[in-house]
C-alpha cells in the first residue's frame, strides 16, 4: 500500500455518517448528486435526508482526495463514480463497522 493511500485512509476512517452513506451509494453504482440524497433516504427508511450543501461539500472534498471522480452523462448531468482508492477506503470502513456490529450483538446477548 502506498503512502498516499495510507494518508487518505487515516483521514477518512472512521468517517462521519454523511460521508459513509455518500461513499456507500457510490460503491453500489455511479450516481448524480440528488440521486445520492434519494438513495440514502430509501436505504435508511427516510431517517436520513442529507442536506444538499453538506453533500456538495463532502463530494468536493472527496473529489480532491481522489476517492471519487466526476463525468457528465448524455444529458450533461454530473455523475460521480467511486475510484479504486475510494473502494479501498469504504471497504476499510465497512470492516470496522462489521466489528462494531458483531460486538454490539455479542454484548447485547450477554445482557439478556
Amino acid at each position: 500500500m502506498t503512502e498516499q493511500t495510507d494518508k487518505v485512509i487515516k483521514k477518512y476512517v472512521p468517517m462521519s455518517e454523511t460521508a459513509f452513506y455518500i461513499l456507500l451509494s457510490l460503491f453500489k453504482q455511479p450516481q448524480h448528486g440528488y440521486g445520492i440524497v434519494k438513495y440514502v433516504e430509501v436505504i435508511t427508511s427516510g431517517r436520513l435526508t442529507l442536506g444538499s450543501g453538506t453533500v456538495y461539500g463532502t463530494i468536493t472534498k472527496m473529489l480532491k482526495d481522489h476517492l471519487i471522480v466526476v463525468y457528465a452523462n448524455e444529458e450533461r448531468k454530473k455523475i460521480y463514480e467511486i475510484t479504486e482508492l475510494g473502494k479501498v477506503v469504504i471497504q476499510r470502513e465497512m470492516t470496522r463497522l462489521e466489528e462494531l456490529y458483531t460486538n454490539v450483538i455479542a454484548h447485547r446477548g450477554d445482557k439478556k
Partner: protein
Amino acid sequence: MSEKSIWKPFWSFHIQNTEQWIGEMEKKGYTLTRFQPKLSHFTFTEEAPSHETFAISFDRSRQHPLPNALKVDGWEVVNKHGKWAVYGNARQKEEVKTSIVRDNLEARNSKIVTFWWIFFIYIIFSIALQAGLLLPVYLSGDSFTVTRIESPMWFLTYIIFAGQFVVTLIGIYSLITLQRESKRLSEEDAQSQILVHNEDKPTTLSVERQNKFKFGWMYAPDKLERWLEEKEQLGWHLTHIRKGGFKFQFEKSDTKLYAYSVLFEGRADRNAHAFHGEAGWERVYVSGMSWQQWSVWRQAYSEGKEKPEINDDPESKQRAAMRVAKIHTLMFAPIIFLFGFNFFSFMLPDALEQGYFSISGIERFNTTVYPFIMFLFLINILRAWAYYFRVRGQ
C-alpha cells in the same frame, strides 16, 4: 513522416475551438504527438488518425483520472502534460454520450480574471496617486520647466513603457475573452441546469403588501433566516428581494412553514446552485457579482417534520460561517488600519496640540468622521465573528 509544429497562443481561452481544431487536424491526417501547454505549442505528426473527438481537461492535481464510464464510452487519455491533458475518443462527436466535466477549468479561468482585476485596480490606484502628487504642482500656476537630460538609459524607460503597454493589452484581451469563454462554457451544460427561479406574481390590488428594509444582514445571516421564517409564520410571504439585497417585499398570505437558508460563496458556483434546486430549494435572491456571491434559499415543509437545512452538519455549517467572518475581516481590517494610522499619528496629535476648535473646518470634519467610520467597520467585523461563534456554539 512529416511533422508540423503549431503555436497557438491563448488556446486555453477558447477550449472548445481548440478541441475542434485538434479534431480537424486529425481529419487532415495529422495526429497530435506532443503537447506543450505552457508554451502554447502543439506538435502533429503525419500518421493514420486514431481519434475523432477530443476534449481538453485541466486538473490541478495532475492526475487526469479516467472514470470507468468514460472508458466504456471510448475515451482515453491521449496526451498529458502537467495540469493539462488531451482526452480522445475514436467515435464521432454525435455518438459519444459522455463528456468530461470542466469545473476545474472554470475555476482556473476565474482565478485568472481575478488576477487581472487586481492588476488593473493597482494600476489605476498608482496612476491616481501619481496624478495626486503632480497635479497640484501643475495647477498651482507657478511656472516650472521640465528638462530632459540626455542619457543612454532612456531606452530602458521606453522598453519598460512598451512592456507595460503590451501587458495591459494582454490583460484587456484576457478579461474580454474569458468573459465570453465563461458564457460559452455555461451554455455548454445549460441543459442540466434546473434552477427554480423566483418569478414575481402579477400584482393584484386586493393583496396586502409590505416593504421592509434590512441592512447589514451579511454580518449575521442566521438572524436574517430567522426573521424571514418568523415573517412567514405571521402570514407575510416573501415575494421578492430587490437588487442590492436591502429591500424585502412581502404579501399577506396563508401562514406556511418555510425554512430559509442564506449562502455565501467565495466564487459563484452554478453547479452547487443547480444541485440545491434539484434538492427542492427555491432561490429567492442572488447577488450580482460572480465572486463573493450571496444567495437566499427557501423550502416549504410541513409541521411535525424536521426543518430542512442546506448545510445540515455542524462541520459544514462552521465552515460556511468561517468564510463569512474571514472575508469581512480581510475586507475591513486594512481600511481600519489605514484610517487608524492616519488618525492616531496625524489627526489626533494635531487636534490635541492645537485644540479642536482652532483647526480648520475640513480637519475638524475628518477628525470627527474618521473614528466614526473606524468604529463602524470594527462593529461589522465583530458582528461577523459573533455570528461564527453562535454557529459554533450550537
